[in-house]
């Protein structure tokens, strides 16, 4: 019974002995180990506890008035050290450290969030503003916000009819929205703007055979074309584009609200 009381007293003491004084910070000297404190406490505790109400015992023992400038407390059984200006400096230093830690925490949270954003944007799904006349019946001239997903082109699951985002082969900083009309080996018939009103049929690169007239053809290319055949700069001009230029597949339209819904073949 007494044992438990002692431990309680010890813990109360150890906590309340560190308190800010007028001239700085008083605290227990570091080398006073728990065992020492405990042993020295034991006698006085038992003395105090005998026949006394325990709740009244603890109060006087840690009264601030017992901590003088020279810091002697409990019959000089505990050595106390007084910090003057050095203590203040140390406290300020601690403050700075804690502020820096806090800031670092915040920054790392923000950085992690940005990383998550980047990965979502690059590997999962991202919003895009598509404008211009080239996809006119499907996408508006003034600008539609569409969602594009980056999963299916990585898995090779895009096919004819899909609307894709492609890095323009003529300007790598521009990303254009077009519809895939043919993959490797497909036969594509299109209205050729270069040679008047002639419909021309090309086979998009049968393996190893060169069929398109303007450029040489290889495997791994796709034929992209805008829905508006009169105002679209697409594969009819620059030929089929490498599959590696595809940046995503548009699958959902968010804006304008009246045409909210799926996009697709």
């Amino acid at each position: 019974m007494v044992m438990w009381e002692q431990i309680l007293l010890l813990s109360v003491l150890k906590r309340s002995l560190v308190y800010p004084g007028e001239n700085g910070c008083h605290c227990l000297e570091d080398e006073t180990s728990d065992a020492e404190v405990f042993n020295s406490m034991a006698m006085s505790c038992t003395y105090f506890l005998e026949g006394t109400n325990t709740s009244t015992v603890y109060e006087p023992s840690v009264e601030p008035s017992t901590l003088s400038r020279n810091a002697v407390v409990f019959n000089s059984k505990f050595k106390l050290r007084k910090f003057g200006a050095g203590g203040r400096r140390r406290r300020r230093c601690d403050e700075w450290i804690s502020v820096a830690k806090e800031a670092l925490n915040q920054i790392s949270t923000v950085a992690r969030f940005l990383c998550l954003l980047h990965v979502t944007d690059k590997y999962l799904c991202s919003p895009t503003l598509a404008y211009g006349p080239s996809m006119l019946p499907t996408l508006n001239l003034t600008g539609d916000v569409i969602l594009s997903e980056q999963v299916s082109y990585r898995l090779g699951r895009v096919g004819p009819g899909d609307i894709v985002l492609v890095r323009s082969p003529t300007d790598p900083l521009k990303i254009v929205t077009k519809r895939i009309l043919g993959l490797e080996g497909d036969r594509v018939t299109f209205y050729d703007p270069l040679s008047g009103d002639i419909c021309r049929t090309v086979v998009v690169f049968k393996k190893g055979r060169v069929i398109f007239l303007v450029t040489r053809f290889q495997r791994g290319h796709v034929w992209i074309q805008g829905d508006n055949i009169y105002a679209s700069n697409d594969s009819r001009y620059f030929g089929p584009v490498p599959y590696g230029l595809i940046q995503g597949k548009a699958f959902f339209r968010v804006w304008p609200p009246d045409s909210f819904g799926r996009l697709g073949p």
Partner: protein
Amino acid sequence: MASHSFLWSFGKKFFTFGLIGLTVSDRYASILPVRGASMSPTFNPRSDSFGGSLSDDYVLVEKFCLEKYKFSPGDVVVFRSPQNHKEKHVKRIIGLPGDWIGTRSSYDIVKVPDGHCWVEGDNPSSSMDSRSFGPIPLGLVQGRVTHIVWPPERLGAVKGSIREDRLSSS
């Protein structure tokens, strides 16, 4: 229960590091191995030994150039193969848009179209490059090789110089 929470915290750490690593390698820099002998004097000089992955060079690829797509002739770049989007190739840029390139096999002169570049390997005898598939769109470029980081004895920057006989007169 303890193992459960340990697994949870481990998974969280793993996820975070994966996220950060992926972002850094996408946006800033990454390290890639170079296989094959197509860039032989520059990378993998002992190509005839076929030592496997142990003798491969590892190179540092920076991605800051992708913000503007500004390159200069002689840069060594990593790009997705125009024929197979899953492969990446390392070649040297010989010509940029507007340059005239003489192909060595046939004696034609080709003009590099807008937004394209002409890439060739340093080892012409075993290189699959623009001489076989023509100029490639700059949009396929994934980064510029700046340093060799492995093996340690060949650690150093990659020089951006074109061999004399490939200098194009524009």
